[in-house]
């Protein structure tokens, strides 16, 4: 399956991109994608648990299995207002 990953704020700075489409085995969870990111980027190594996770613009558990076509965003600590 394919999911679209969106990167915002500090995560955009760290990954150097605002989004990418990745190929994953059926049923992969957002938490597993987070672990891949941690492996790639030293600045994330200390963050064992992902920040808040959104699938298709809604907050969900990072352990929810993903489906083909999902849009996944890890939400760093928000600071609006």
């Amino acid at each position: 399956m394919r999911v679209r990953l969106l990167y915002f704020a500090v995560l955009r700075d760290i990954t150097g991109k605002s989004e990418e489409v990745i190929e994953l085995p059926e049923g992969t969870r957002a938490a597993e994608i987070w672990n891949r990111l941690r492996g790639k980027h030293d600045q994330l190594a200390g963050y064992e648990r992902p920040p808040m996770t959104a699938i298709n613009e809604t907050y969900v558990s990072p352990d929810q299995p993903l489906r083909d076509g999902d849009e996944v965003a890890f939400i760093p600590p928000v600071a609006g207002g």
Partner: protein
Amino acid sequence: MFSVLSVVINSMSYLTDAPIDSQELVKRVMRPSDGACVVFEGVVRDHHEGKKVESIFYDAYRPMAEKEIQRIIDDINIRFPQVAAAVVHRLGKLKVGEASIVIACASPHRGEAFEVCRAIIDRFKQTVPIWKKERGPGGEEWVGWQK
């Protein structure tokens, strides 16, 4: 397969890239039956946790932020049907003294107007996917992210 571009269908968006006109927000919420209007303005201040701040860059997951704000407004409408509330958050680079958010709440009586205005900003700061990068003499930093 993927939504091409998330467009806010409503003519009314909760996000803007321009300075916020708080008077316009007040006009939008006031009804003849309202005796009170409480307005909250969040403003870029010149310091944060002991550091000097010169400007702030606000970034957002726009379509999700719109939805989250709508969710806050919907909840308020259910809990306080007598209150009319409007919210606008500005994105992009803001200087000290410029408003990042304005919330206007009108109600027949002042109690609920104060309560709702406070409830909206408190919840806004917890769930709406908006981020800020502070720029000061020491460089830039995303607020809330521990390096």
